[in-house]
């Protein structure tokens, strides 16, 4: 039987762990609120951008010499997979599930005989992918210095990707991140960045009411597209990273919440055991005294 001192020590150590997880949960909760606000504030821009672009894209798609960012390079030999994860751990299955989804995609692509390149945003995804796909990782973006993600933090990443695309280093770009649904649920999402893919929103798009062809364009459609498409890549990336940040905090909050609860359960169990042991020791002592007295 464990002795009393050991049990006491266990209880103390679990209690201090619980204090830490509780604090982390609280911090995550307040960060989550901020991250969520940022993600929501970024939504209008990305949505408008998408509306305008999908209108424009329809009118240009059939035309020869349409921008490569829109229609693709014509081949699909090389794929770039962007894996966006967090910089810190202790957030449940958040990073693992993103990496898992990305890994499945990579396996599928490799099986189909395509060349895969990987770009990691966030240290955690990199450490997980490094072992298996180390030689495929072409770039790791470290955002651990960045506290509040701003558009100016993201545009260099987008520029780098676009630069490599222009140098025909790959034909397709797919982005993996976790979309924020609620603090409890984050949805791992695969999004094709290049060539630009637009979700078909039947009926929803009528809010704007006007088809792309009615607009007068200044400068020409093609020129507008050629400035808008690269910006769209940056905007989509920015939105994805904001969603990711909110998801990360949400995942951490739930993970830390259950850790705190587990610690509480453990303390209860240990305290019970401690009390039982203590009682047993007292009973034992009493028996010894009584039997000693009887022997006299």
């Amino acid at each position, binding site marked *: 039987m464990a002795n009393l001192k050991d049990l006491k020590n266990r209880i103390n150590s679990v209690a201090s762990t619980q204090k830490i997880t509780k604090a982390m949960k609280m911090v995550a909760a307040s960060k989550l609120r901020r991250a969520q606000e940022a993600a929501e504030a*970024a939504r*209008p821009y990305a949505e408008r951008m998408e509306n*305008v672009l999908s209108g424009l894209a329809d009118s240009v798609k059939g035309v020869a010499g349409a921008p490569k960012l829109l229609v693709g390079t014509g081949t699909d030999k090389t794929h770039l997979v962007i894996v966006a994860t967090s910089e810190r751990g202790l957030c449940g299955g958040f990073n693992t599930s993103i990496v898992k989804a990305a890994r499945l995609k990579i396996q599928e692509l490799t099986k189909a005989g395509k060349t895969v390149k990987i770009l990691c945003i966030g240290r955690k995804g990199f450490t997980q992918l490094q072992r298996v796909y180390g030689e495929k990782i072409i770039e790791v973006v470290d955002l651990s210095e960045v506290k509040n993600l701003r558009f100016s933090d993201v545009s260099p990443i987008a520029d780098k990707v676009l630069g490599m695309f222009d140098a025909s280093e790959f034909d397709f770009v797919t982005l993996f991140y976790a979309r924020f649904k609620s603090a409890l649920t984050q949805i791992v999402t695969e999004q094709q960045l290049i060539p630009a893919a637009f979700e078909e929103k039947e009926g929803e798009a009528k809010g*704007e*009411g*006007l088809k792309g062809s*009615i607009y*007068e364009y200044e*400068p020409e459609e093609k020129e*507008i597209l050629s400035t808008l498409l690269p910006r769209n890549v940056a905007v989509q990336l920015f939105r994805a990273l904001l969603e990711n940040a909110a998801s990360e905090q949400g995942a951490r909050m739930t993970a830390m919440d259950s850790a705190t609860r587990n610690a509480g359960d453990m303390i209860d169990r240990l305290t019970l055991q401690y009390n039982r042991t203590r009682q047993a020791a007292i009973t034992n002592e009493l028996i010894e005294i009584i039997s000693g007295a009887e022997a006299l």
Partner: protein
Amino acid sequence: MAKDQENTFHFELVSPERLLMDMAVSAVRVPGAEGDFMVLPNHAPVMSTIRPGVLDVYEGEGKTPEQVFVRGGFAEVTPGTLVILAEEAVLVKELSKSNLKQKITDAREDLEDAKTDEDKRKAQEAIARLTELLTAVN
């Protein structure tokens, strides 16, 4: 009031980080890539990229316009709405000349101190940006 509504249209200014303005206005002057244009209610639908410059937002007749510096983006005009998506948008009244000049000098110093190409590029970008802002304020 009814008359007011006829003479206004819906204006939105959106930057990637947030929705900056969302209100009814009577006129907006937009620095288009191929020249400034004034957007009034019932404007023909236009889609235009914008050059770095100042937006003049008129909330009503006779009122002094609210000035906003915008950079990199485009304007979408429909008869009842104007949506401007700008990569960067700053209210001009929040900028002060002396402050900007100070920042430009700082950035120049950064450029001289820059060791790596990356730092140099950053400093140069900052200078270009601040100079644009300064011309906008003047």
